[in-house]
Structures are given as structure tokens and as C-alpha cells.
């Protein structure tokens, strides 16, 4: 308890010298500049400019043009207007948000529970831990193709197993109400291993003393989980939420291999809408779509990151 109470003070205390040191740095910037000869920076600089700076600027430029690869014509913001009026976009936008929230929510819950299980004194713990992590290592495309076969409405393993139990399984990937959710479930299966590993690190780093002290005070396992594990694993929660939310927002490969955005447009996400424009040869338009996606991800993740980290500081 003392450490948490002392934390803000420590932070403030640490901030003070930082500010002064930064001031000093600015004053002596000439000295810093000379620390390495210019030639040292050149290789990294060239790589950065040609591979990152130029393409990024080019993308912003081409998003303002009608571009056929052979030539381009400057058309101002028309592409953005067209992209935002795209019929599939609204559906794609809501689907993206649903997908991101569902997958990151389930990864947080399942990841934490699995982490608690896998940090307990369980037989074959190392083996079980690696088993949970295994799907993360498999190629997404491979997972997608495998589950497309497993989720086949009449011949798939999932529905034939369900029918043995007397349950009539839905057409997972071809029923408009199920398609997006089915893909999200597969995404959770594939990604929960990473969340679990992050949580295991978080849970293991919680000092044993807290649990011992709580036990002396008569707290049961549930109270220990609620009052010690949950709040002190917060940094892990932040990391898992941010990672899986970004992953969910820009998800593409799994959706594309499993449903292609279908049936019709019912499981389209922003990334698949953008890819379809590229496929159709609308290069300017799809570049504009990427700029929109970039802005959207920043608009969601930056405030969220700030919010979650602030909460952490207040603890």
C-alpha cells in the first residue's frame, strides 16, 4: 500500500529534474549534434526517407488524385467524398467496431482467466502454457482456411459434432447474422494466447506478499482476485486492450480468407472495403481509404491510450 500511495509523489519528484535536463539539452544541442559524424546517420536516414517518408507523403498525395498507375489527375478531396459515401463503408465501419470490441473484450476476459489458471500450481504448466500460445504461431491464412472447412454448414466438423448432441448448428460463415461473429471467434482463438502470455507476465510480477497479507486478513480466493490480481494486473490489461483493439481495427487477412466480406457485404470491415477498391483498380480511392483508416485508428487509440495510462498513474 505504501508504494502505491507514494507513486504520484515519486513521479512528480522524478519529473522535476527531467524538465531541467531537457532545458539543458536544448541549450547544448550543438554539442549533441556533433556527437556522431554526419556519415553515421546517413544509412539509416536514407532507408527512412526512401522506405517510410517518401511512400507516406506519396500516399497522402495520391489520395487526392484519380490514379490509374499510368497517369494521375488531381481531383482534390473527391476521393474522400466518394469513399465516405461508399455504401459498404457504413456497414464496414460498424462491423469493424463490433469486431474490435468483441475480440479485444473476449481476449481480456479469457486471457486473464487463462493466465490465472496457468500461474496456479497445475500439473504440466509449461506444456499447457505453450499449448495456449501455439495458435499465435500458426499462419492466419492457414487458420482461416482450416476453420472455413470446419465451419462448413453441412459437412464441417463443428456442425456434425453439434448434430450428434442434437443441436442444429447455424451456417456459421454464410448466415448473415453469424458470419462476422464466427470470424471474431476464430480471431479470439488465434489471438488469446498472446493476451494470456502478457497477463501471465503481469500476474507473476505481483509480489506474493500481498496475497499472504490478504490471506492473513481472511480474504478468500475471489476477494484476492478482485482486490489484488485485477487492479495490479492493470498494465497488462492496458497492453492487451491496446494491442487487440489495434489488431481488431485493422483486421483483414482472417476475414478475407474466411468470408471475403460476404455473404454480400455483411461481414465487410474497413480494410476489406479498402482492398476491394484496390482490386477494382481504383488506386487513388483506395489510398484515400487508407488515409481514412489511419486517421480513424489514431482517433480511437491515441485518446484511449492516454486515458488508460492516466488511470494507471492515478492508482
Amino acid at each position, binding site marked *: 500500500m505504501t508504494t502505491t500511495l507514494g507513486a504520484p509523489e515519486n513521479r512528480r519528484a522524478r519529473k522535476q529534474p527531467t524538465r531541467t535536463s531537457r532545458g539543458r539539452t536544448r541549450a547544448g544541442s550543438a554539442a549533441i549534434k556533433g556527437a556522431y559524424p554526419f556519415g553515421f546517420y546517413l544509412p539509416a536516414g536514407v532507408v527512412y526517407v526512401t522506405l517510410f517518408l517518401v511512400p507516406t507523403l506519396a500516399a497522402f498525395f495520391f489520395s487526392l488524385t484519380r490514379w*490509374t498507375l*499510368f497517369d494521375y489527375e488531381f481531383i482534390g478531396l*473527391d476521393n474522400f467524398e466518394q469513399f465516405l459515401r461508399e455504401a459498404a463503408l457504413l456497414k464496414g465501419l460498424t462491423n469493424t467496431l463490433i469486431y474490435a470490441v468483441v475480440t479485444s473484450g473476449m481476449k481480456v476476459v479469457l486471457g486473464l482467466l487463462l493466465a490465472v489458471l496457468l500461474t496456479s500450481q497445475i500439473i504440466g504448466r509449461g506444456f499447457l502454457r505453450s499449448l495456449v500460445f501455439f495458435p499465435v504461431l500458426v499462419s492466419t491464412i492457414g487458420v482461416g482456411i482450416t476453420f472455413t472447412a470446419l465451419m462448413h454448414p453441412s459437412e464441417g466438423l463443428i456442425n456434425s459434432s453439434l448434430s450428434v448432441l442434437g443441436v442444429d448448428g447455424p451456417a456459421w460463415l*454464410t*448466415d448473415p447474422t453469424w458470419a462476422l461473429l464466427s470470424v471474431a471467434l476464430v480471431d479470439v482463438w488465434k489471438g488469446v494466447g498472446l493476451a494470456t502470455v502478457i497477463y501471465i507476465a503481469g500476474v507473476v510480477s505481483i509480489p506474493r506478499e500481498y496475497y499472504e497479507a490478504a490471506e492473513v486478513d481472511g480474504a478468500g480466493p475471489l476477494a484476492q482476485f478482485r482486490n489484488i490480481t485485477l487492479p495490479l494486473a492493470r498494465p497488462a490489461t492496458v497492453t492487451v486492450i491496446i494491442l487487440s483493439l489495434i489488431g481488431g481495427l485493422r483486421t483483414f487477412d482472417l476475414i478475407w480468407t474466411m468470408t*471475403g466480406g460476404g*455473404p*454480400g457485404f455483411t461481414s465487410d470491415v474497413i480494410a476489406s472495403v479498402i482492398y476491394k477498391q484496390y482490386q*477494382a*483498380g481504383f488506386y487513388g480511392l483506395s489510398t484515400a481509404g487508407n488515409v481514412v483508416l489511419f486517421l480513424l485508428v489514431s482517433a480511437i487509440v491515441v485518446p484511449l491510450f492516454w486515458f488508460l495510462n492516466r488511470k494507471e498513474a492515478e492508482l
Partner: protein
Amino acid sequence: MRFGITARRSPAIATLMALSISLTACSSGSLGSSDDKKKLTLDFLVPTGPDSLPVGERLAKDFSASHPDIKVDVETRPGGGEGDNVVKTRLATGEMADVFLYNTGSLFQAIDPKKNLVPMTDEKWAGDLDDLFRPTASVNDQVYGAPAGSNMGGGVLYNRKVYADLDLEVPKTWDEFMANNAKIKDSGIAPVIQTYQETWTSQLFVLGDYHNVAAAEPGFAKKYTANDVKYATSPAARRGFERLQDVHDSGYLNKGFASATYEQGLSMIGKGEGAHYPMLTNSISPVIEAVPAAKDDMGFFALPGEDAAKNGLTAWAPAAAYVPKSTEGEKLKAAKEFLAFIASPDGCKSLTKAQPPSGPYSVKGCELPADAPQAVKDTQRYFDDDAVTPALEFLSPVKGPALEQICIEVGSGIRSAPKGAQLYDKDVAKQAKQLGLKGW
């Protein structure tokens, strides 16, 4: 979007091909005979897939046999939208192969032929092309491509055995077609096969209906290009979407149509588990390959319209071989000879050897083989009767990329036909704007 058979096994074939090509290249190189110095090598870029790669290989082989001083190396690229991007990128960077195969019609217009391709109008063979093909590979009266395949029809592939067993007649109007469907359903056979796992197969009811649209509204294509007429507001054009909804709402589709694949559709129609499969005629030989017993059972008729007297076929022109501007000098001369071979009766024979034709050839002097399957002869009949209209994509550059998804939505009851037509109009407007067409 394009039609084409996208085969899963093609990468394996392509790898094998590339391997065998590189091996032959090694052996002839290491021999180091004096011939090699005189021998000119042409690169020939063809799409992978069972409907294109064998054609490219066969043409290369037969041409080299009759022109011993020219060697043709086949190089492969992916098909579909990915292939479009490969072709465009290579043309834009000036690194295109010496000769390449690509679609005709609206996709051909999109690669800026005037800027990127060598015109072939002055070649002798340009005069031998038929009127159906010629405009699909031309810009302003300049011909650019030699037809590398036979014409195709878009309509309904049907099982003749089912028709004989149930004593049905080939329908010439939509009402007759639906009456047949009712009888077929009563006998326990799926009347109409749809295979929405492969999205491109969903579009036939709309795209194959263009003959009927043009019959009801002459000059539709021109008005369509100029943005004067739309799918949602033209009753004739909207019928395609309405029919798609019709067959779904009447319960005439095969069970599990939403997750059925093209291959399953082929085998269903071949075995008579389904009676009708709206498809292109280039699927006839794959059906026979999948179900050899079906050779005489396969028949074909055009999508029926409202008026029996105006019954006719919507046709697709074959892909063509083009020469990019980056091919120069001796190679250009050799490339022109190669195109002349492709657009000759000898070339047609070579094409037939690679793949049974799906309809008549576009070059004067080319004949269908006598042992062609019945469905191909059915297709030929429409050409003989002059009851053929080219598909809209050959008459207008306007074509929306999302038609297949919209058709799936209408065909599985997710969206109504009028709403589907409206959505397609929006999709089309986007494409026209991206092409920079006037009036949009």
C-alpha cells in the same frame, strides 16, 4: 469483375511449369549449339489457371514448331483482380513481357491501349477477325489484340437427361423456364444451381440477360455509358435482378447454395443432381472433365426473356494476345509473327488441342471440331442464327466492381431486387467517376 475459372490447384501447376521451363532453358543453353545465337526468345505472359495456362503453353509450342528460329518462353501471372494489378504495374514500369494474354472489353480499355500497346491494324490477319470480336480489342478503329480462344455464351447449362426424363422442352420465355422449374422441383431435383462460395459465379442472371435488355431497349449500352439510363429505373435491365430474386423466393435453389463451390456446381449439373446451372459456356469442358459420362447430357440455352420471338444469346469475346510498346526491333517483328499465328486457322487448331472450344472462333477459316459436345453445338446455333448480342462489358466501359456481392445478396434474400439494382447503380457511378468518364 471478370469471369474466369480460378483454380485452387493452379499454383502447383505454375510451379511445375516454371520448373520445367527453367530446366529446358538450362539444357538448351548448356548445349551451346550454333543455332542458339540466331534463335530469338520471346517472353509470353499468361494467367495461371486451367483455362489459360494450357492455351499459352500449346500456342508457344506449336508456334516454335513452325518457326524454328523463334523460341517462346511462357511466364505466368495470377488471374483475377490480382492479375489486373500485375499487368498494369508491369505496363506502367515498361517491364511487360514481349507478348501477353489479357481480357478484351472493359478491362482491355482500362490498360490505356493507345499509350501502352502496339496497334495491329495493318497486319494481314486484322481483316480476318469477325465483327463481334474486333471492337472488343480495338480503340478508335485501331485493333490491338489477336483472339486467343473461342467465343463464349452466357446462359443456362442444363442437364438433357433430366429434361428427357421429365419430358420438358427448352424454354424460350421466363414463364416457361419457371414452369419447368416447378416440375423439376416436384421430381426432387434442384431446379437451379447457385454456387455463392465462389462469388463470381453469381452474376449470370444479370450479365447474361443483356441480350434481352438490348432487345427491349435498343441502344441501351450507349445511353448507359452516357449516364442517361440506370439499372434501377430501366424495367428491362432491372429484370435481371428481379429474376435472381424470383428463383430464390420460389425455393428453386439447390440446398446449401450459399457455401457451394464452382466445382460442386459443375459436378451437380453433370450428374443431374441439379437441372439448370446459369454459367458461361467455357464451363462445358470442365463439367465433362469432372463427370465424363455427361458429354452427351450437357445442353445449353440462352437466358430466356419475355418475348420468345426475340430469344437470343449474350456472348463473351475471348481473351487476346497483345504486344506492349516496350517490345522493339527484332523482337517486335517476331512478336507480330506470333500474333499472326494465333489469329490463323493453324492457331485455332492449336487452341482446340489445348482446350475444347466453348463456342465458335473469331477468326475467318476456323471451324469447330465435328466431335464437339452437344452444349457447344447449342451455343454455335445462336451464332448461326445471328441471334447474338455481346455482353454489356464489351459495349461500354462502365461496369461496377461489386456486382457479384450484390447478386449474392439479392440471390440469397438479404436484399430485395430493386434495392440491389439501386446499389449497383451507385457502384457503377463510382467506377465511372474513377475512370473520369464524361457525364458522371
